[in-house]
């Protein structure tokens, strides 16, 4: 990949990201939305976040994959569920993943 390509990708990614972030607020802002919509919005975060977690911890490209990182994330998940701070969770996840890869 050439340096020109790198800069081109960066510029286009910035433009596309800004457009995507602006789309919702431009299309729907300052408008009273129907009540049923609030019920859907409340569930958007759990649905999207669960998808992000699963895809990043349980898949590699277009394949399901369970690896050292999956174990690290799972242990961190138990700690987070019991009220651990996100920084602790992240450090534990990285440490366990690294330890499993070292053996």
């Amino acid at each position, binding site marked *: *990949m050439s*340096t020109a390509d*790198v800069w081109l*990708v*960066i510029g*286009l*990614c*910035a433009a*596309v*990201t*800004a457009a*995507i*972030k*602006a*789309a*919702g*607020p*431009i*299309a729907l*802002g*300052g408008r009273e*939305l129907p*009540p049923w*919509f*609030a*019920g859907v*919005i*409340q*569930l*958007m*975060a*759990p*649905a*999207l*976040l*669960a*998808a*992000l*977690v*699963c*895809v*990043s*911890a349980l*898949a590699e490209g*277009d394949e*399901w994959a369970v690896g050292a*990182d999956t174990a*690290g*994330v799972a242990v*961190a*998940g138990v700690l*987070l569920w019991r009220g651990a*701070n*996100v*920084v602790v*969770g*992240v450090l534990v*996840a*990285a440490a366990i993943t690294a330890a499993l*890869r070292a053996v």
Partner: protein
Amino acid sequence: MARERFRSGCRAAIPYAIAGFVLSMSFGVLAVDAGFPPAAAIVMSAIVFAGSAQFTALSVMVAGGGVGAAVAGAALMNSRFLPMGIALAPSLPGGPAKRAAQGQALVDASWALSARGDGSFDRWFLFGATATQYLTWFSGTVVGAFAGGVDTEKLGLDAIYPTFFLALLIAELRSGRAKGAAALGALIALALVPVAPPGVPILVASLAALIGVRRAEGPGGPAGEERAP
């Protein structure tokens, strides 16, 4: 009042900002390893400021994909900001240009943290939370871009990204319906992984939120009496 909310947002995001620092540091290391000039890695974090999109574009380029494929991958990864932006929209005042500008503060942790739980969002809180994260996202990339020779896999840094989102998710699982939406979203995404391009499984998983359609109002909100049961 606004200043107070902004400050609360700044503080609330600190743990996520620290995790983001490590994450963006690993982005800086990987980007420079892949042949990015350090300045390019830093500028990308400064003006794109979307971790999953940056990692996706980078990995497409490393795999030999072209400019178009890299940008498309990043766009698909960011497509989750469409439903998030739609959710946020009614909480943003002003004309279209002003709302579009405010929408730029949209990042995952800020969005999740600023949700009031009734479908509305605290925008000053969101701006504050994003400010803290922007600071560490930028500075983490600077450190990573000049660190050099760090093996991020060996250090287990790739486990940070899913853990970051898991922490946000766990904070969201207050109700049975939220758990249902999470389980359904996870199933949809995993089912689509083998057949859809990266990013699409996550976008489609947002459809799981439609199970909330039946219950119109959040707790304490005025009930939509006119609705048929």
